[in-house]
Every structure is written in C-alpha cells, then in structure tokens.
C-alpha cells in the first residue's frame, strides 16, 4: 500500500466516522421518548404544581412521549430523584420549582440528561439546560384593572409567599393595572417570608393583617400558603363590613371556592413544554427562553360569578389592547423595582 493510498483510506475512515457521528448526533437529538417533571408539592394544588403536571401530560400526548411524574418532593435536595429519573430513561427532566435550580443543572452535567429549570435565564446551556421563567404579567395587569374597578375601600392587597421573578412581575403588573384605572387606590404589599411557599398559617396571618389595613381585594401568590390566604378572606370581613375577595394565580380554584374567588390569572404551560420537546428534537434545546401570554390564551383571566358583566367587558377591552400592542405591560422581575412601584402606588 502506497503512502497516498494509506492517506486516502485514513481520510475515508475519518469522513465516515464524522458522518457517523453527525448522524448519531442527529439521531440522539431526534429521540425523545420520555420526559419527567418534578414538583415540590402534590399536583392537586389548583396552582403551580397542578398546572405544571397537567401541562406536562398534555405536552406528552401532543408530542407522543411518555411522561414520568415525581410530585410532592418538598423543597429539599432532589438530586437522588433526578438521578433516578435519569436512570429510568427520561430524555428531559423538568425541575418545576425555583428551589431546584442548583441541583438540576448539576445532575444534568453529571448524567448528560437535559433539564429545564425556572427563574434562571442566565443558566441557558445549549443541549443541556433550558430556562422557562414564565410570567403571567399581562394577566396580572388585567387583574389589577379589575380590582381597581371593584374595590369598595379604595385599598387592595398583594400577598406573596416569596419573591421569585415570576411573581415579582405579576405583582408589578397588578399594581400597574390598578394605577391605570385609578391612581388613588392604594396597593398594600406584603411578603409572608423568604420562601414561605407552604406556610398556610403565615399566609392567613399576613392576609388578615392586610385586610385589617383596609384591603378588600387580595391578590395572592403562593403555593400551599395561598390556602391560608383563602381561609383569611373567607373568615374575615373587610373594614367596611363587606366581603373580601381573592384573586388567585396560575390555577383555577373554582371547585373549592366558597364565593370569595374574584378571578385567577390562569397559566397554561402546555405550549412551553411542547416547544421544549420540539427544541430537543430539533437540536436547539437550551438556546432560547420561553414565554406565555394573553395572545395565545396561555395566560387568561378566569370569569367567576363575582365579576359583574360590565366590569368583565371593560377588562376584556383592555385585554384586546394588550394583545394588539396598544398597551404594553412591562415584565418587571426585580424585587426592588417591584417595591418601588408599590411605594409609588401607595403615595
């Protein structure tokens, strides 16, 4: 064999290997058979956890992939669960809690199984880590418009069980929505604790204080703690002696409502998860962020019997203006900016 022949054969082998690698890569990228979702609380909370799990299941049906659900994991260390799901064949693991933002990327690097995390846009890593910092701020703005139109006392409250970016943007948008209708309406803002997601007693205690301060409509953002908020509005009267109303987020608590649920900023995360699976198949996972909004109804406001028809019509007119771009609702994720806004509203 001459030197030229040897070089030619080596080049052919290298070319074949390169082609094989590319094909294999394409094959790997296209192959998504199963996804997993991990949630800190049970998927029956009429909120963040339930919406996440239901969306994952719907996305699985749409894209034809198996969905593994690990729910009620708490807010501690989920590394063992992530490793287990990776071993069980998950091609994508959705870590559906901001508390999992450290563990999930670590396990993704360890197991090479892609993960999706929340509230960490800077963590985007092609092929490995995607972020879905979702915000229903457009819906929260509408809720603020509705609250401003319906408050009797001229004071509305925001109670949150933490300050993750998604909730910050909704708190800010709610306040902006209130101001857009009536800047005399005060917005009282209170955080239960640094991460009081399951602190139902804290939710009740803080909400009772906000009601005592004059709020007759509470915009509540919490997981388990939101049930404490709901309990507070059900058992306390407003300062004018009337009923206190509650605005929920993410889920639909209508089945357990006792007549105090004014509305909810409902999220549908299905399009986001479908897009993630498609991105994984198209080998562009981890290269972009995902969003939900009014335009495709992935964010919508819930109509309940507490909302008068004329108010609903006015709010829906504002919705059209947001969808058309006539009104632009900024997404304010920073807690400091949110607080500044509250102070201004209050002043």
């Amino acid at each position: 064999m001459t030197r030229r022949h040897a070089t030619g054969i080596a080049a052919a082998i290298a070319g074949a290997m390169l082609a094989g690698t590319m094909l294999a890569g394409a094959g790997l990228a296209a192959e998504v058979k199963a996804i997993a979702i991990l949630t800190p609380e049970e998927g029956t909370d009429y909120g963040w956890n339930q919406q996440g799990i239901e969306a994952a299941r719907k996305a699985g049906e749409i894209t034809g992939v198996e969905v593994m659900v690990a729910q009620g994991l708490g807010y501690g260390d989920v590394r063992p669960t992530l490793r287990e799901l990776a071993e069980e064949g998950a091609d994508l693991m959705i870590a559906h809690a901001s508390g999992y933002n450290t563990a999930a990327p670590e396990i993704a690097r360890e197991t090479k199984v892609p993960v999706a995390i929340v509230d960490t846009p800077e963590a985007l890593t092609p092929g490995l880590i995607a972020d879905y910092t979702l915000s229903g701020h457009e819906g929260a703005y509408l809720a603020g418009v509705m609250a401003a139109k319906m408050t009797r006392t001229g004071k509305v409250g925001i109670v949150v069980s933490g300050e993750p970016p998604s909730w910050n943007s909704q708190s800010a948008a709610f306040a902006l929505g209130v101001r857009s209708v009536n800047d005399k309406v005060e917005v009282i803002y209170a955080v239960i604790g640094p991460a009081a997601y399951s602190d139902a007693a804290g939710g009740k205690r803080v909400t009772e204080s906000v009601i005592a301060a004059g709020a007759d409509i509470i915009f509540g953002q919490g997981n388990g703690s939101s049930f404490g908020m709901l309990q507070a509005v059900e058992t306390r009267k407003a300062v004018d002696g009337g009923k206190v109303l509650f605005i929920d987020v993410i889920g639909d608590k209508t089945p357990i409502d006792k007549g105090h649920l004014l509305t909810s900023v409902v999220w549908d995360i299905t399009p986001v998860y479908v897009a993630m699976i498609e991105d994984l198949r198209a080998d562009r996972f981890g290269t972009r962020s995902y969003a939900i909004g009014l335009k495709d109804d992935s964010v919508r406001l819930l109509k309940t019997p507490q909302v008068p028809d004329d108010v609903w019509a006015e709010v829906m007119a504002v919705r059209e203006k947001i969808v058309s771009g006539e009104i632009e609702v900024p997404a304010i994720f920073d807690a400091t900016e949110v607080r500044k806004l509250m102070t201004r509203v209050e002043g």
Partner: protein
Amino acid sequence: MLTEAFLAALLYGAVTAAVPLLLAGLGEQMSEKAGVLNIGIEGMMIAGAFAGFFVAYHSGSLWAGFGGGILAGMAVALVMALLCVGLGLNQIVIGIGLTLGFEGLTALMHHFLFSRTYPRLPAAEALAIPLLDRIPVLGGALFNHPPVVYLAVLAVPGMAFLYRRTQLGLNLQAAGDRPAALDVAGVDVTATRFAAVLTTGAFAGLGGAYLACVGAGIFVPFVTNGAGFMGIVLAMLARGRPVWVLAGAMLFGICLALTTAAQVAGVNLPTDVIQMLPFLAVMVMLVLFGRRASLPAALGIPYERGAR
C-alpha cells in the same frame, strides 16, 4: 394606615404565630431536661397538625381535634422513646428520620384525603376575658383568643412549678444531668426519660393541631414550616426556664408581626432585610443570653446502667 384595627390584627397575629412555638418549646424543654435531644419534634408537630385537622374536620369539634393532635404527637414520640431511650440509638439520626418520615407520610395522607377538596375549618371561637378585652388595641389582640391559647400560656407557670417544686421536676433534672445518680436513688431513668419524651410529643402534637386548626384553618403538606425547629432553638435559649420560652416565642411572633407592619407601612427596605428581623432577634437573644446557657450534662447520651 396604622389604625387601631390594623395594630390589633398585627398583635393578634403575633400571638397566633407564637402559640405553636411556645408549645413546641415547652415540650422540647422537658425532653432536654431529661437528657433527650428531641430533633424529631418537627415530625411530632406535623403528625399532630394532620391528625388534629382530620379529627376536628370530621367531628366538628376543635377540642376533639386538639385531642387527636396530642395523641398523634405522643404516638410519634413513642417511636422516638422506644428507639432512643429504650434501644439507645442516636437521637439526632432518629429525630431527623422521624421528621422526614412524618412529613412524607402526612403529605401522602393529604394527597389521598384532602387534595381534591381542600376542606377548611370555620374560624375558631374566641373566649373574651371580661374587662381586659376592652382595653384599646391590646384587649382584642391579647384577651380574645380561643381558650387553648390561655391554656398554653397557663402551662408556663405550671411547668415552672413542676420543675422547681416537685419531685418529678427534680427527677427530670437528674435524668438529664446525672442519670446514674437518679438510678442510685432508686428512680427508673428510662421510665423518666420515656415520660418526658411522651410529654414532649403531647405538647408538640397540640402545637401542630393548633397551627393547622386555628393558625391556618387548613392542613397542607409541610404546614408546620419549621416551627418544631424553632421550638428547639427556644428551648435551648431558655436554659430550662419555661418563662423564657414564652418570652422567646412572643418575641418571635412580635417580630413576625413587625415585618408585616413594616411592609404594609411601605418601609422601603429590601423584603429580605425585613424578613430577617425575627431570626436576627433570636440570634441577638442567643448572643446576649445563650452564652451562659448550660445544657444538661447527659443531653443526647443514652443511659446504660453501669456504663462508664
């Protein structure tokens, strides 16, 4: 903004938040006096919270709920006592195991029983203390609570009396400091420690039941949110004195109320800074008073007759 109604609501909330900590702290104090570091108190509280809510919801009686909470707390405490006092296993490991185990178990039970309906209890009926309840702001906040709150506060002098004036109190002290001496005196160290741990379970279970039935009016997974661990801190700070547990619990509750007040009043400070206040207060207490704290000499050490 700082109206009488608002201030009263803040103080009322402070008391409501303090009661579970008080009960947990008093319970933990008894265990520690007897030489058992009861890390499992969070597990006893969550078991009490679930059982208390379950019984109160199905019976319609808050008192039955408190009874259920006490029994559930004692049941978890019995496991702790059997493993740690009876078999001499590591108290910290068993305590953590019990906490994690019962957090998981109650979350599972919630899933099967309540997770579709999320039942809530009506507001607990309050008992106004005549005349005192008419004091502006303070009256409504301090003297118009469900009777169990007054019982919890009355437990403080009761425990102080027990520790200072009774033979049982001395036995508990000896079981924690010099168990061998207690044994020589003819008192069963194991039985004394068993009784202390079971009493801790009763206090913790009642605290959990109060938290779920009165504090929240609902049971959700992990509802105790670390109240048991705060009880351990309070017990350690209190140096064996029940009144200091009460002071610490109230300080923590008031600080929690102040954090809400600061936010509602629009104090332009990062929320994280405001939220640090209760924990900062506890740390200041620790620095000021905790340095002189003396824990029982045999705390955390299993007793074995004749062992050196």
